[in-house]
């Protein structure tokens, strides 16, 4: 017994080191799985609050680009408005296909990273505003990411510039779909894999979100084809997609509440149980 105490006393430093290292390695390994630890995320009140303060100052630096983006969106919406001939028959749909306006939560990016392999954004709206994990986040130009964690007033988003993110996407003109991933290299480009060889694709074609995803509605812009690779082993195309969005400069974003999502998920669960 005496020896055990002696041993612990002598090696207290090393044991403390091993304990702390163990905790940190556990946290880092856990963070590599899709559903992450809820404790260490910038959605908590401390880091969220600090980021909101910092953002209050730094948003003045890119007011001009944000204004431009909003003005462009305004112009687009206005042109849509003028195209409607019979004003009494305005369909109660937003420009995003199939969604009612109350399905959208306007939010602001208060922190944005794009220099690591696993990038996250922090938004200034959380569960009190109705944000839940696995909702889609878009802005006027295209998709941004998927909600990961939420606290009362803040939420974190898995950016599309994250090697863990995987989003169903398709060609706008032909409905051939694939999955959208990021290889961790350039912030302007993502990769669309598993597009079948039958698809006729050309440089410059538009890529939009696919209908298989329960997170995003169909036909939200992602980007245009920049380069096409053909993989000999798998006979699928690998496409480099140039994003419409500048992921390094994000201001206001929209969080999409998909009404059908829970229904679809419940249905699929039921199916699995039946088997």
């Amino acid at each position, binding site marked *: 017994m005496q020896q055990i105490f002696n041993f612990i006393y002598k090696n*207290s*430093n*090393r044991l*403390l*080191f091993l304990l*702390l*290292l163990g*905790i*940190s*390695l*556990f*946290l*880092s*390994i*856990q*963070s*590599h799985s899709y559903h*992450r*630890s809820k404790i*260490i*995320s*910038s959605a*908590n009140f*401390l*880091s969220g609050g*600090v*980021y909101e303060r*910092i953002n209050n100052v*730094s948003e003045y630096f890119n007011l001009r680009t944000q204004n431009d983006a909003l003005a462009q969106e305004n112009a687009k919406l206005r042109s849509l408005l003028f195209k409607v001939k019979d004003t009494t028959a305005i369909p109660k749909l937003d420009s995003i296909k199939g969604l009612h306006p109350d399905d959208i939560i306007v939010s602001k990016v208060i922190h944005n*990273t*794009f*220099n*690591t*392999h*696993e990038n*996250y954004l*922090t938004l200034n709206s959380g569960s009190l505003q109705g944000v839940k994990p696995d909702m889609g986040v878009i802005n006027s130009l295209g998709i941004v990411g998927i909600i990961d964690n939420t606290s009362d007033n803040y939420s*974190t988003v898995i950016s599309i510039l994250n090697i863990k993110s995987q989003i169903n996407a398709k060609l706008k003109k032909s409905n051939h779909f694939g999955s959208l991933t990021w290889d*961790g290299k*350039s*912030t302007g480009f993502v990769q669309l894999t598993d597009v079948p060889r039958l698809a006729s694709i050309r440089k410059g074609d538009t890529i939009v979100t696919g209908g298989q995803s329960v997170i995003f509605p169909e036909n939200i812009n992602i980007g245009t084809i920049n380069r096409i690779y053909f993989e000999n082993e798998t006979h699928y195309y690998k496409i480099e997609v140039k994003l419409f969005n500048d992921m*390094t400069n994000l201001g206001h974003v929209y969080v999409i509440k998909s009404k059908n999502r829970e229904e679809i998920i419940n249905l699929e669960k039921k199916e699995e149980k039946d088997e």
Partner: protein
Amino acid sequence: MNSTLFVNIFRFILLLAVQIVIFNNMNFLGYISPYPYILFIILYPVNGNKSGLLVASFFLGLIMDMFSNSGGIHTAACVILAYYRPYLFKFSFGLSYEYQTVKLNDVVTPERFSFILLSVLIHHFVLFVLEAFKISFFWDILIRTILSTVFTIIICIIIIYLIKPNKR
């Protein structure tokens, strides 16, 4: 003793704040950012409490991780650096470092520089290995470690010169 404690707590908070507000937003060439917050571990008193340093660097890393959504990679890197710091001292300043009065925040001599270089290198290497966690990113890890190390060292040395206590 009390003033050392106070200086260290002050350094802890100040370095974290500067790191989060300024250096985390610095993205040189798109992906290189400096991490001068580890100056806290480097400048910790040589004969200070080792367990205290371990615990302090654990929380230093934990707060960094919280702010950068990175799980526990900063924590692990900081704890490893804090634990191996005495060995680095031995390597850079010779065996009898504990009996000399090693003062780090002073003019940069070769010994001090080698100590800072090794510390930053170890920290960044652990950091980027844990961040990628894949062998396929090997060259990426290596390049980012080296470039970020250079960047961090430059900023660390600038900070050391800036906060150097005035003589007389």
